[in-house]
């Protein structure tokens, strides 16, 4: 397709070679750190700092990171953090869907007073400096006993997940022809049944994309658990930084193994919703 679009491209046969070289250069740069993380995660304790590319690989580190022995060695309880991340992010996405889908439907279907204000406020959460909200919440949470609780984390994560869900799904509901629901209404469906049986199933891909993207962003969030959690609600992102923070012997190989485990869920989810990423990441400003 590009070949027909670009006039004079025939003259650029050396140019297209250069283009491939440019792409290769970027991807060497982009993929090397990930490759390095894998290599480091496969090294044993003795070789973690003494070798670069030649070493005897072991997969032991992944087991160690998730075991009690790993917790004793590094004083980082990674598997609890992993579980907490799943609960926090899953809970936050669920709440966002239950609250966000009706709001997205309302804003997508009807023009009502304040609907644009609601959408704008949602969008401004995406751009507001997090600490502006987190510092007062830190004080409030300490007063009302929500500090270091999963409920508190699920609540504050709405700041990340809710705008995504509402903005992505509103554009899906807007693109859905209203005729379909009208037909259902004429068939004697109530509004609620028309929504549940006609509109909702049709936007299922959008719901999946919004939910997974929201989960990824909640998973990758660091500021909230850093400030509003301590032990029982702390997550993977905070746990990973602790590997390099403490005193005693440093386990870089375990750090890399933990980093790999922590990076895996978002990567897998992102590859499954790649088609919807552009629209989601730009809040619908660019259609993918």
């Amino acid at each position: 397709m590009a070949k027909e679009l670009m006039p004079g491209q025939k003259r650029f046969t050396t140019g297209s070679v250069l283009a491939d070289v440019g792409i290769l250069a970027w991807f060497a740069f982009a993929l090397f750190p990930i490759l390095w993380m894998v290599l480091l995660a496969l090294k044993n304790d003795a070789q973690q700092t003494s070798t670069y590319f030649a070493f005897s690989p072991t997969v032991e580190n992944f087991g160690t990171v998730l075991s009690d022995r790993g917790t004793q060695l590094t004083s980082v309880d990674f598997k609890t953090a992993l579980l907490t991340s799943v609960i926090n992010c899953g809970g936050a996405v669920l709440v966002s869907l239950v609250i966000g889908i009706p709001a997205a439907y309302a804003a997508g279907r009807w023009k009502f007073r304040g609907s644009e204000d609601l959408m704008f406020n949602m969008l401004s959460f995406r751009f507001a400096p997090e600490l502006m909200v987190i510092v007062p919440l830190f004080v409030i949470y300490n007063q009302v006993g929500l500090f270091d609780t999963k409920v508190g984390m699920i609540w504050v994560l709405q700041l990340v997940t809710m705008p995504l869900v509402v903005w992505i799904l509103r554009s899906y509901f807007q693109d859905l022809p209203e005729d379909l629901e009208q037909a259902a209404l004429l068939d004697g469906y109530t509004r609620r049944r028309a929504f549940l049986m006609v509109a909702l199933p049709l936007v299922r891909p959008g719901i999946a994309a919004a939910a997974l993207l929201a989960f990824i962003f909640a998973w990758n969030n660091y500021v909230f658990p850093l400030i509003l959690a301590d032990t029982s609600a702390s997550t993977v992102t905070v746990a990973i930084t602790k590997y390099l923070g403490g005193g005693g012997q440093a386990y870089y190989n375990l750090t890399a193994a933990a980093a790999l485990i922590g990076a895996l869920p978002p990567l897998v989810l992102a590859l499954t919703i790649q088609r919807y990423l552009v629209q989601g990441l730009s809040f619908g400003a660019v259609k993918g």
Partner: protein
Amino acid sequence: MSATMTSAPATNQRDGAPPRVPERRRQLRPYILALPAVLVVIGILYPFVLGAYYSILNYTAANPDPHVVWFANYRSVLSDPQFWTSVRVTAVFAVVATALETVLGVGIALLLNRASKIGGIFEKVLILPLMIAPVIAGTIWKLMFNPQFGVLNHVFGLGTFDWLSKDAALWSSILVDAWIYTPFVAILVLAGIRSLPKEPFEASQVDGASWFYTFRRLQLPMMWPYILVAVIFRFMDCLKAFDLIYVLTAGGPGLATRTLQIGAYEDSITFQNFSRGSTYMFLLWILVFITARYLVSVLGKAQRRAAGAED
């Protein structure tokens, strides 16, 4: 579907009108559906307003019964050289990182758009750095930056070069930020390029215009709105940079990478001076707000111009 349409009126006549919802309830419907979301918004706006209020108090952990001091915090922060260092660090980080990511991202998008089989494979893995949590990316890079046994110094033969020293830390942070977020610009711009209409380019080809002329006069103006969307997202996020830098350097050495959000974190969480931290954040919020308004107006102009260029 057409069957449904034709049979529907008959059904209505047979059963009489379908259950009608009173007009008033119908008008209230969107409000009822949106109410929980509105409550969440209020729940988030409340601490925001409270934060603004903190900034005119003298509220610290040591002083739990604060009183209003009006603009004393603002006077103290604005006359503090540390604050202005943070402003400078934040500005340099945001401008340089956004510029670097935009140039690289647009370049990668153009290359991937015209390139060959290799491009197709790489497009799939392009987003990998973007999806890794910034703190995890920061941790990986911190290991690679290590002066003694880090792989970068080994591969490039740099001896014991300190990537996170006072002079280098800000630039190293920008490098890592570009590693994470260049793909963001690239995928947005690539999607934009692919959504452009073909006709103007075909016309330009028929007219025998050179590739560069077509790019400068036609493709770039038409791509510009997509580039600007990416720039807005990146610049706004860079202004509140925290995760990555906090992991790499925690704002140091000295004040070398102390961005405004890191300054606010130190004041309000480390030193438990909530009022001073909130003052930092409110000033940053004003900066973000003004920048957003300006960039969005630039975007609006560009969109109108791009729409005109299509004719």
